[in-house]
């Protein structure tokens, strides 16, 4: 299979690899996928409680090159965004950016799921409901 240059770049130089303390209140952790499906992503965000801006993001992924690239790209994209903005990242944006072929679209879906799961975990810890979020214009 031929990979796009961007997938290869993320695979060779994955951004934001690592782990943050998942017991911290400011950290949201999303663990999605399953080993038997061939991909598992863990995406973590550290959110500023005042501004709701995602100040740090980390990931680790078990999966093919496209799965690694999708999650690496997701950490880059969520950093600096507010939680509400990050929720607007769509898997189709990832497909477009990485030029993923149809058989790899599930990798981008998983990355979107990981973002949502991490934000969901952070919200749960902090008792944030949808209405309390800082209103942000669509980007």
């Amino acid at each position, binding site marked *: *299979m031929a*990979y796009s240059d961007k997938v290869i770049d993320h*695979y*060779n*130089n*994955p*951004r*934001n*690899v690592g*782990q943050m303390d998942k017991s911290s209140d400011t950290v949201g952790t999303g*663990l*999605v*996928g*399953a*080993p*038997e*499906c*061939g*991909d*598992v*992503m*863990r995406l973590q965000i550290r959110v500023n409680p005042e501004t709701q801006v995602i100040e740090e993001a980390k990931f*680790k*992924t*078990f*999966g*093919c*090159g496209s*799965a*690694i690239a999708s999650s690496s790209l997701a950490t880059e994209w969520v950093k600096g965004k507010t939680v509400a903005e990050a929720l607007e990242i769509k898997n189709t944006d990832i497909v477009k950016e990485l030029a993923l072929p149809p*058989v790899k679209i*599930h990798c981008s*879906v*998983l990355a979107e*799921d990981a973002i949502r799961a991490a934000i969901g975990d952070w919200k749960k810890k902090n008792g944030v409901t949808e209405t309390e979020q800082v209103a942000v214009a669509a980007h």
Partner: protein
Amino acid sequence: MSVIEANLEVPAGVTLPIYMDNHATSPLDPRVLEAMIPFFTEKFGNAASRNHSFGWEAEQAVETAREQIAKLIGATAKEIIFTSGATESNNLAIKGIAEMYKERGNHIITQVTEHKAVLDTCKRLEKYGYRITYLPVKADGLIDIEDLKRAMDDKTILVSIMFANNEIGVIQPIAEIGKLCHEKGVIFHTDAVQAVGKIPVDVNSMNIDVLSLSGHKIYGPKGVGALYVRRRNPRVQISAQIDGGGHERGMRSGTLNVPGIVGLGAACEIAGQEMAVEAARLTEMRDHLRRKLESALDYVEINGNMEHHLPGNLNASFVYVEGESLLMGINDVAVSSGSACTSATLEPSYVLKALGLGDDVAHSSIRFGLGRFNTMAEVDYVGDKVIGIVSKLRELSPLYEMVKEGIDLSKIEWAAH
């Protein structure tokens, strides 16, 4: 942070890319090519032309090849039928026997890790009213001979069990299967594509009645294969599946591929002469690769029985690393993965699953196929490269991290998608 940069010095004498996928196909031996070339040009005759020297010359070359192939498997030349390859040989054997012996019975026994050319042929016969038993394999990839005994009944006409597996390299107990089949009066066919030319094959001592083989797995050309069909004790008959000029004793019509057949013959002769030395060399390189990988990495699982095993095969799972991402990191080395991600189906290898491997371990597997033209320097390079990439990808793997922290992955509720 630059995680994946296992840039290795390429040692002297090693040229990239390295081909280590010899179960898929093998390069043509230059000696084989040399034997073939005249039959493309000045010796172009049709082997079926009986009335001029061009035809006689071609026929003579075909008969020489028949002798060379027969000698390698302990058969006689008249028992060799030329085909376009092992897929055709398997189709002809199974469909041809099913049709010829349908008055005697409609039951065929095979096993789950066969090549698709056997499995899908059997599936088609099921549509025509044949009953097929697919024997399971044990965790080491071998069938249980007791299962075979139990599966046989008075309607059983054919047992088709491969000699050696193309993914995990295990060698089935062929002589035992052959003995049992002969005791019960059941025809025994074996797909011996991966075995012929690599390990000793003898159709008489092993009681093999019908055997498929291919040119391009043994440093011969693609597009040519053969089917051995026993003529005595018992005489096996096969209904033709391709009708026409009545070539190959009526079993397979079509003008013979003379250059291909000459190449297959030459490949068999070379394999017979060099088998002992080559098998010892491949086994040494294979074992070296295995030791190297296992001493540098944890969670390496070797798939398939290693006692009854092809010399050049090593199938290993690098658990907690996904196979396709591993292949991507060793893109200057040609190997195969049991990972689903390399196919459109997203299902991992059915062979590895038949051994009882979890999908996650099957996804992590790599098949190394060593062959005649690989060197120890290449094996060392590939070993170092794999070790480097596996280590880097495990730094990226949440599963490896969790296992290292003592978390039992089977206790986690994964959200399957």
